[in-house]
């Protein structure tokens, strides 16, 4: 079955991203297709590669990046939410003259249409949030 995932909270503060990750991993292991993981609201913070969490804790961002690498997942950060919250890719870095870019490997910034499309294309949409 084709599944869409929506993640509405950032890493660490709420468990939403953890739950979404474990759900996604289990779905992939069972042979389901993950059409897209869409990160909205504070969820876009899951895509920042500026995090350096303690060694004895999970690395939420890296874990998503690795899962994307292994399974070719499409991890999309909402552009409007990203602009409000400080997620910047190389294009945005140039346009706004920032000192760097902080979108982690496997994530891309795109529009809300990608969420609607996930709703249309996937057989189920599962929303994780607060």
């Amino acid at each position, binding site marked *: 079955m084709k599944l869409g995932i929506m993640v509405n909270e950032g890493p660490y503060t709420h468990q939403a991203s953890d739950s979404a990750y474990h759900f996604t991993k289990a779905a992939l292991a069972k042979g389901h297709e993950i059409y897209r993981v869409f990160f909205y609201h504070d969820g876009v913070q899951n895509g920042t590669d500026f995090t350096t969490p303690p060694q004895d804790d999970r690395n939420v961002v890296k874990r998503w990046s690795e899962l994307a690498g292994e399974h070719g997942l499409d991890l999309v950060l909402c552009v409007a939410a990203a602009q409000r919250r400080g997620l910047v890719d190389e294009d945005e870095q140039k346009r706004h003259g920032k000192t760097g870019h902080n979108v982690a490997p496997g994530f891309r910034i795109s529009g809300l249409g990608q*969420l*609607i499309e996930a709703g249309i294309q996937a057989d189920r949409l599962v929303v994780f949030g607060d």
Partner: protein
Amino acid sequence: MSEAGATKKFLYINRKAPYGTIYAWESLEVVLIGAAFEQDVSLLFMDDGVYQLVKEMQTKGIGMKNFTATYAALGDYEVNKIYIDKDALTERGLTLDDLQHLVWEDENEDWAEKDSIHLVGRDEIADLLDEQDVIFNF
């Protein structure tokens, strides 16, 4: 609705008050973008979500943008099925008169103006959820 291809029934459920958190506003942004995709769209306001439609908000004092005028434009986007939990209103001492009057124009009836808002109870809400293909939660 879409001329070609299957449309899906999309329901946006809003259960949070405006301004205290951004969910109301960012939900509306999804609805506006989603309108271009010509699906069969409904909005449901439950719990504190009913506060989103209260009229005459003055946000100058808190320094935030008042986004609620946008609700009145939904009819122009063919988003005209707006359901409001009547028990949530009652619990909060609100009536329909406290809310914005949202309308749309029916092109099949010579652009007659019709109400977009429908008051619903628990059974109707349960049926509404049941018949959806996709539910977005805010």
